């Protein structure tokens, strides 16, 4: 109990002490500052501005003596510079100031168009009837970085099949100090469709902030699928006024052989006679973009049927070419008449094979028909023999 009381006492003493010190300090500041009759000042008297930029300073005028009109002027103004004071939305020449009530006015300094970089000193002079105050102002004109655009491509050479989309990730850098509106364009073979994408949107014009980058995706797709294999250059350009950047991309298209099997008149049915060889002319086409190599021909026919090809293997079919192949088909001796499916197949060394179903209408020999006719002829012969032998009794 006693202890707690002591703590409380100490606390109270501390609080009282700090309050006293604070009071003493505030009294000291008021007393030590000497009143200046006329003051003109600004928070940031030394500024750095870019070329072609107008510097603006907020000036505060203060007096302690009494209400008075203060005329404002700029001294040591370099040639071709213009300085103007603004207040209340107008150009002013003087301000009215009273004690305890500061007047503010804006100073606008416009450098000439061809200003050289460097440090310029001005003096703002505030003059009332009795007093005069000066404010030195320092403006540093900084040289501006020239506008510059650059592309950065992650993977400038892509390799893919003709039917796929080539996607290039490109970063467009604006290395200048100026925001730019960039026009994007491309140069590529007419079969290519080149699209600039920012995010998921297609763009033609893109704003790029000063000293920043924009990520772009360039999608290149061939409009036709059987474009020849090879390397296709694509030049992309970003232009804003006189500033431009170009970069070269290249799309390497891998050729693909696509084998197609058909007949010269595209009729996929035919006749055959049991036990007799028939020939079927087939056409092996390569509709792809690369040569097909070692195309072997085969057939799936009903059992007992024999098939052979002339030639049985094609060493090479150039892209877009076609070669005629003769298939020799011999149905089984005892095959039943009717329709059968025979599948012809062309298998290239690499790539998918092509097959075609050929419908064979099997006919049987008409030899038995003749035998039947002979049977009837024998019967009729027997009748006529009987008639001539036994007629007229």
């Amino acid at each position, binding site marked *: 109990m006693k202890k707690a009381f002591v703590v409380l006492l100490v606390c109270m003493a501390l609080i009282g002490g700090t309050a006293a010190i604070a009071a003493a300090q505030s009294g000291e500041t008021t007393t030590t500052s000497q009143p200046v009759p006329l003051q003109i000042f600004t928070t940031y008297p030394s500024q750095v501005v870019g070329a072609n930029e107008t510097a603006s300073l907020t000036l505060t005028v203060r007096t302690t003596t009494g209400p008075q009109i203060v005329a404002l002027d700029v001294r040591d103004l370099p040639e071709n510079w213009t300085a103007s004071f603004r207040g209340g939305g107008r150009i002013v020449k003087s301000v009215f100031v009273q004690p305890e009530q500061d007047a503010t006015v804006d100073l606008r300094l416009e450098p000439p168009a061809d200003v050289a970089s460097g440090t310029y000193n001005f003096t703002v002079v505030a003059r009332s009837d009795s007093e005069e105050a000066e404010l030195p102002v320092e403006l540093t004109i900084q040289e501006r970085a020239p506008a510059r655009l650059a592309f950065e491509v992650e993977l400038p050479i892509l390799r893919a099949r003709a039917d796929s989309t080539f996607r290039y990730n490109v970063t467009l850098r604006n290395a200048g100090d100026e925001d730019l509106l960039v026009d994007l364009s491309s140069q590529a073979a007419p079969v290519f469709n080149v699209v600039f994408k920012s995010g998921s949107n297609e763009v033609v014009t893109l704003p790029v902030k000063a000293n920043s980058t924009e990520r772009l995706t360039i999608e290149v797709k061939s409009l036709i699928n059987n474009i020849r294999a090879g390397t296709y250059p694509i030049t992309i350009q970003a232009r804003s006024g006189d500033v431009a950047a170009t970069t070269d991309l290249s799309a390497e298209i891998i050729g693909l052989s696509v084998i197609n099997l058909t007949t010269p008149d595209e009729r996929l049915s035919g006749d055959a006679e049991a036990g007799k060889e028939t020939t079927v002319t087939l056409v092996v086409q390569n509709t792809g973009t690369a040569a097909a190599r070692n195309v072997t021909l085969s057939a799936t026919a009903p059992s007992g049927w024999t098939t052979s090809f002339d030639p049985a293997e094609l060493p090479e079919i150039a892209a877009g070419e076609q070669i005629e192949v003769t298939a020799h088909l011999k149905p089984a001796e005892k095959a039943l008449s009717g329709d059968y499916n025979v599948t012809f197949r062309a298998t290239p060394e690499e790539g998918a094979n092509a097959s075609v179903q050929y419908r064979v*209408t099997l006919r049987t020999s008409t030899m038995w028909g003749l035998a039947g006719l002979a049977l*009837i002829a024998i019967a009729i012969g027997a009748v006529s023999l009987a008639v001539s032998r036994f007629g*007229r009794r």
Partner: protein
Amino acid sequence: MAQQHETTLSAQRGREGSPWTGLWAVVAKEMADHLTSVRMQILELLILITAGGTVFGALQSIRSARGDNFLFLKLFTTSTDPLPAFVGFLGFLIPLIAISLAFDAVNSEFNQRTLSRVLAQPIYRDAFLMGKFLAGLFTMALVLVAIWLLITGLGIFSLGIAPSGEEVARGLLFLLVAIFYGGIWLALALLFSTIFRQPATAALASIAVWLFFMVFWSMLASMLAQALAPIRLGLIDEVLAQAELIQNLTRISPNTVFVEATMGLLNPTTRSFGLVLPSQLQGALLGSPLPLGESVLLIWPHLTSLIAVTILLFTVAYVLFQRQEIRA
């Protein structure tokens, strides 16, 4: 005796006129008799009733399954549950008509003593027998064509489509097969009517042969096949040989021949009769119809053998008739 025979032979060679003189008169008279006879009318009524019943049933089932080819052929071959297909009925109605048309062709003339009178006319025996036979064949053809037209007409009326050319061709070929199937039984009945003097005997003999082929021959064929090509080791070849033998033996029966020929013509998807090895069907497009020519080729042996057997049976009847003593 032999010498006498020789001289008559040489006399025959120099006979006057054509043996066909008066043939068409006989045919016309016989047909008139047939078409007005009560016997024939009863049979025609029977055919009409079966045709009406089976085709009506077939129409019901065809209408519920449209969109098929060869609808008009299906009219003949579709069976609705209690009734067999119309061609099935024809299988035993045709022999019945044929036998009833010819079993008393010659012997009733004998018994009524009209044969001498007929032959007293300037008509050869050739023309007489041929006329009898052709009249029977034509009567049967008339009945069958009428039935065929009736069914086809009914089909057009109730299905609302016309038969295609191939359907008509197949139908006509089927008629040809049916007529010569009847021709065999007609020639057989004619043969018996020349052999037996009693019409009842001739009729019974014809029906006995018919029943033998209709009912017993298939059993006998399998028994014979088991005896001739026994399966000793159960090899596939043995089974095949036996099955083939059974098929060939059953084909001696005109019934089997008619059924197979009908199947081949009216069911265009038929590729073969009897045993088909799975290897023969590999790659085959089942259910695709055979071209008409192929179907005809398939049933060609059937058709020609029906025609040939008809002609041969007639020849036998002719020879027997020519050698008979008829001056009774």
